[in-house]
């Protein structure tokens, strides 16, 4: 088992940075997800850890030892790709056994380890089959079995379930996490799917344009995003973000949305904090997730009327688009709460779930009400 440290890692291609000043410590037995849109540098980072990609500056240490000098094969790391890369002419058994045979392990050891891995992955009954006779999920289980059988220090996975259909992905998420708990290998997992990251990671490292944006537990990155990119990349439906101005008034803070589209009441504390942080009060963006938009049928203090524009029923709950002048706020309501488009409902933002960002830098002002 191993810890992995990336220190000031950079990779560039001409003038273009692929990875910029990346610092990340992955602890022994930890499950870390590198998350970001395509082209953000996450796969390059993973490949650099595996030794499949050279870095231009910085260090990558596994168990405290720099690994650039080592060949990929000597780093004792296993890699699982999105495409299964199995040998088509070998059975599942032989595919899993392959790395052990290459290490000249005894017949008994090979058999024991293959059966152990197969049992953990619940593919014991498929060992005699060739890849062409297996489903997508089972192919990926075999590929993972082949990676695990060597008992590597670390397991690196590049979108391993990205090619599977939605239902199977859901199933495999639970299985992979379970497998991690049982075998305890330090795992670095790359995906562009925030649901995968949220549901599997001990910690998520979010990247964009080669730059690490935030590292934290799923709860931290969801509840306290450091900047607008993280705020809108994590969570579905997307966090509402609206430009706003904060003004003192009526013993509280008036938050004026967009181009005077709506005025919302916030505690006095908000205005003071904005001033205290020396931030221009008209360069604010407020962010609130759909569950932080509170919707009521009747008028009460602090609520303002808005018209329901579109209702998306998603089963256990609805997503309702509410019109605030030219702005749109999406709210999450119980199923059927707003009967039809055009209905007027009363709306308030939950101040404890409202985030404040600078429109200039995109950074969070770290104001928590």
């Amino acid at each position: 088992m191993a810890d992995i440290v990336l220190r000031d890692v950079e990779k560039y291609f001409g003038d273009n940075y692929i990875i910029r000043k990346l610092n990340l410590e992955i602890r022994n037995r930890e499950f870390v997800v590198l998350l970001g849109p395509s082209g953000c540098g996450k796969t390059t980072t993973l490949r650099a850890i595996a030794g499949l990609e050279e870095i231009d500056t910085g260090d990558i240490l596994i168990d405290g030892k720099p690994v650039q000098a080592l060949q990929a094969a000597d780093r004792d790391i296993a890699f699982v790709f999105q495409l299964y890369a199995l040998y088509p002419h070998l059975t599942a058994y032989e595919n899993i056994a392959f790395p052990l045979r290459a290490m000249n392990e005894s017949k008994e050891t090979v058999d024991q380890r293959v059966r152990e891995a197969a049992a953990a992955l619940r593919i014991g009954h498929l060992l005699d089959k060739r890849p062409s006779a297996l489903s997508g999920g089972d192919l990926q289980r075999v590929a993972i079995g082949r990676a695990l059988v060597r008992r590597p220090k670390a397991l690196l996975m590049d979108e391993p379930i990205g090619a599977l259909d939605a239902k199977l992905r859901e199933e495999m998420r639970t299985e992979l996490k379970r497998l991690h708990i049982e075998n305890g290998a330090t795992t670095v997992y790359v995906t562009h799917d925030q649901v995968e990251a949220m549901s599997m990671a001990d910690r998520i490292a979010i990247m964009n344009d080669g730059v690490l944006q935030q590292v934290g537990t799923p709860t931290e990155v969801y509840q306290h995003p450091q900047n607008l990119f993280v705020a809108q990349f994590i969570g579905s439906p997307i966090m509402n973000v609206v430009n706003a101005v904060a003004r003192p008034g009526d013993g509280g803070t008036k938050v004026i949305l967009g181009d005077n589209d709506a005025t919302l009441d916030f505690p006095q504390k908000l205005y003071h904090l904005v001033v205290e942080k020396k931030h221009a009060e008209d360069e604010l963006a407020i962010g609130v997730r759909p569950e932080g938009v509170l919707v009521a049928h009747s008028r009460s203090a602090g609520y303002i009327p808005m018209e329901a524009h579109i209702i998306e029923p998603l089963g256990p709950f609805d997503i309702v688009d509410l019109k605030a002048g030219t702005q749109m706020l999406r709210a999450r309501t119980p199923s059927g709460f707003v009967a039809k488009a055009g209905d007027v409902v009363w709306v308030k933002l939950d101040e404890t779930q409202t985030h404040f960002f600078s429109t200039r830098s995109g950074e969070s002002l770290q104001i928590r009400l």
Partner: protein
Amino acid sequence: MADVKLANISKKFGAHTALSGLDLDIASGEFFVLLGPTGAGKTTTLRLIAGLDRPNGGSIAIDGQDVLGWSAAERDVALVFQYYSLYPHYTVRQNLEFPLKSKVRRLSQPDIDQRVAKASKTLRIEHLLERKTDRLSGGEMQRVSIGRAIVREPRVFLMDEPLSNLDAKLRELLRAELKDLQMKLGATFLYVTHDQVEAMSMGDKVGVLNQGRIIQVGTPQQIYNRPRDTFVATFVGSPTMNLHQASLANGRAVIVPGKLEVPLDGGGGVTGGGLPGTVMLGVRSEDIIVGPNETVEARVHGVENQGVEKVVTLRVDDCLLKATVPARLAIGIDATARFSFKREKLHWFDAGSGLNLFYGKERENG
């Protein structure tokens, strides 16, 4: 705008039956979503309506007129594909004008200008009109593709997975935009997708298609709350509906003997009368209550953080069940937890046919 009626349609490709006995009734001005997995026959259905293929049997009527003998152009329907199919060397304006300059329906230049202006305003692509289409982002290209359909003012819009090439965030945005567009135009939309979230969130009606047959047609709520069979039940909804075999004995539905049993005492409207000896019992993750005083004991097999809530996998012997719980509920992997089913929300299916045993029927207690 027009209604579309398909009756008893069959379509074969060689020995392969793509569609059989397909009936479809799409009202004028309706947003109808055809939902199904790959290979279900969704795209084949669209192509038959568009006039790109001919069925082996059955009838197709648009606005009450049989159109089987009509060419694709005469049918006056517009198709939008997953791939944008724009002319790369032309500007957005030229792409939008193109369908209005065809020999079949050539419009005057002022008419063309007016329609292009209106469509680009609706889709908020006015600022892109003079740009070449190879300089556009994926979302912009798909808006232009839709614009090419809108300018024609067709009787019916047919859309084949138009959002599936876009990333998750953009898909979410365009879902709301497309629904908004359809409402503004008051147009008839037939929208094909394999994504149940798209179907639920956009459709006035959803038709679930599997292996060339329509399984169920209904509002999103009907499809979600009263699925006709186990296919619909597990295809719609995320997390997937929990589904376990149960044998009926001594007035109980037994999933795990002695540990996970549902009494058939009329609770939830089910007494067991008239039920077969073995059933498939379905329960959605949000209909499992987790708490210290609930009736069944389980091990926590997995916990998935989903931000606003957590999805917990509970294990009773070899039986795994997913439950949705609030994010603030502290629950650790390998801990013990207790749960109960919301009895009135259980779904009872025939173990052989997979059909919902209460479909279209009232339960004993309503």
